[in-house]
């Protein structure tokens, strides 16, 4: 895979999380997100916790540029709840985390479970006041008769403490399960999407939101599609897209009307009739949609492929990459073991030249758009010696298996990479296996 300065190889940097094979369900990673500078990396898990890692740069000079991510803050974002009216448990699993651009010393992120979005402030405290006039060091008030002079408290250094506090709770606006949140480029509003509706919020206002998309039919028996993902355009604050379970993407302009049920553009590729099967609808359902950083393209992920769409062309994608086409003949088994319902995410690199997505057997795939090359890599403990270069992997679809290839039937479908993230500027990637977070960096030869 070529990048600036020559061929790029990926090497292992760090792995976070427990080593046991016995994975606690609460530790399963459910979302991964870099902040806008890449200095912070947040993960959410099924237990409702958020763990934030901070980058510490060891050597700033290329090509020896090396950095390490260490735990910066851990907090419980969401707790399990019970909806007594519907007799339903509300899972605490963090579905998405989105960072707000930094405006002051503190960092802010939005985290959401199925029903409630929370705005968290993460701030550092490295000084504490000392020398109060009226109080002892332990907080007890002094006897006023003993006070004979006036002194002003001074701030003295202390060990760094990182505090996370919930600043806003945006609740009770979603009947169905929230699948996406997206911060607007105006830095004032954000959207949240569930299966049938998309709501627009102001970051300062928690007691109301505007419904901007509602695809719920009058008669639920006529339901044919649901919303699977939504995102604001990175620069145009009036534009957002949402994807559906039917494989379509709708681009909406909030200037056109208050309720954006009528799309401005509809992106859809006609289905290839030769690929029709019982499971055609399931595999065409889009699991993720992401705008490119430059705002000219968007990428969608369905079960077997990644598609790049030019926002100016609605009738077909400009590029299609097969992630694991060898699974097409196994759809029935994947249906039985539920893997066909897995929702893979996808991401762009900083300059939109490469896209990445996950697969099974702890494999993940990168597609270099410019050089039309792709590579399959593996996140595994076996390849986790410091700076170990990752060897490209290959799956043998049929016929004679070559040495170093792995056959489709040997793939472990319990080891899936659903969540990946790419540093906004550098070639650093975070790849989440079931309960471990792998960080890889490029090695320029």
């Amino acid at each position, binding site marked *: 895979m070529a990048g600036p300065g020559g061929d790029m190889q990926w090497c292992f940097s760090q792995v976070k999380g427990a080593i046991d094979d016995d994975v606690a369900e609460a530790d399963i990673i459910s979302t991964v997100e870099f902040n806008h500078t890449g200095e912070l990396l947040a993960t959410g898990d099924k237990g409702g916790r958020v763990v934030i890692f901070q980058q510490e740069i060891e050597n700033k000079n290329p090509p020896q540029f090396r950095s390490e991510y260490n735990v910066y803050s851990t907090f419980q974002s969401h707790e399990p709840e019970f909806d007594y009216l519907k007799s339903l448990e509300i899972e605490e699993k963090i579905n998405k985390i989105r960072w707000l651009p930094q405006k002051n010393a503190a960092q802010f992120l939005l985290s959401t479970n199925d029903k409630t979005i929370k705005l968290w402030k993460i701030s550092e405290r490295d000084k504490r006041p000392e020398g109060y006039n009226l109080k002892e060091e332990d907080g007890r008030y002094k006897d006023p008769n003993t006070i004979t002079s006036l002194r002003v408290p001074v701030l003295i250094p202390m060990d760094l403490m990182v505090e996370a506090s919930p600043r806003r709770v945006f609740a009770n606006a979603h009947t169905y399960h929230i699948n996406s949140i997206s911060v607007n480029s105006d830095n004032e509003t954000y959207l949240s999407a569930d*299966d049938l509706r998309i709501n627009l919020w102001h970051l300062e206002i928690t007691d109301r939101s505007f419904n901007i998309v509602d695809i719920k039919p009058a008669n639920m028996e006529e339901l044919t*599609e649901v919303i699977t993902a939504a995102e604001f355009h990175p620069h145009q604050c009036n534009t957002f897209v949402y994807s559906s379970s039917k494989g379509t993407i709708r681009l909406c302009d909030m200037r056109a009307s208050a309720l954006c049920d009528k799309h401005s553009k509809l992106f859809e590729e006609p289905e290839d009739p030769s690929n029709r099967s019982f499971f055609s609808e399931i595999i065409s359902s889009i699991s993720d949609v992401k705008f490119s950083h430059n705002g000219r393209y968007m990428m969608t992920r369905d079960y077997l492929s990644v598609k790049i769409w030019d926002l100016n062309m609605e009738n077909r994608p400009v590029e299609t990459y097969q992630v694991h086409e060898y699974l097409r003949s196994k759809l029935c088994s994947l249906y039985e073991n539920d893997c066909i319902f897995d929702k893979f995410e996808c991401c762009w690199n900083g300059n939109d030249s490469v896209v990445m997505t996950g697969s099974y057997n702890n494999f993940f795939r990168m597609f270099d758009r410019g050089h039309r090359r792709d590579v399959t890599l593996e996140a595994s403990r076996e390849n986790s010696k410091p700076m170990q270069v990752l060897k490209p992997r290959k799956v043998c679809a049929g016929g004679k298996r070559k040495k170093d290839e792995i056959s489709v039937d040997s793939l472990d479908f319990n080891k899936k990479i659903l969540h990946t993230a790419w540093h906004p500027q550098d070639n650093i990637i975070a790849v989440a296996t079931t309960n471990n977070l792998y960080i890889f960096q490029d090695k320029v030869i």
Partner: protein
Amino acid sequence: MSAAIMEVNAEARRILAVSISKLYASRTQRGGLRLHRSLLLSLVMKSARDIYHSSRESEGPPVGGEQPSTEEAMDACSGCPGEANPGHREPQPEPESVEPAPEDPEGCDGEITEDKENRSPARQSRKRRGKASAAPDFLPSKRARLEPGEERYAAAPLGSCCRAGAVDSLSALSLNRVIPAF
């Protein structure tokens, strides 16, 4: 019946059975029924049903006593994607997705001025009918029911609402082997 058609039939029936058991299992999932998943399951069931019916049509009239019961089961399935979809009142508690059945679907249209206070007891019960009462056999009913000659499942892996008996009309689909997995 040609071998290919039989194979397609068997495949369609198997997929239907798997789908139904998944639908049952999802009712006891943490976090409640997932609309997206339920929709996808119902679409697969619809595809399987359509393929089954079209392969039966191409094979000709039914040949034996076994056929009518499976056909009945399949026809019951024709209500499935609609019934199984989250709009259906019975399988799930989400009130938003419930469309209230009309009070008296047949009788009300011309009788706007009917005297509800003084109805004769012989009249139809005021209990809501509509789609809920048209639920096919294999979907769980809230009323206790024991199929003749059948015992209840001792374990209830599917939660308290499910009955082995209710499922039994699809026994030709080997559902018994599939259900315990959940």
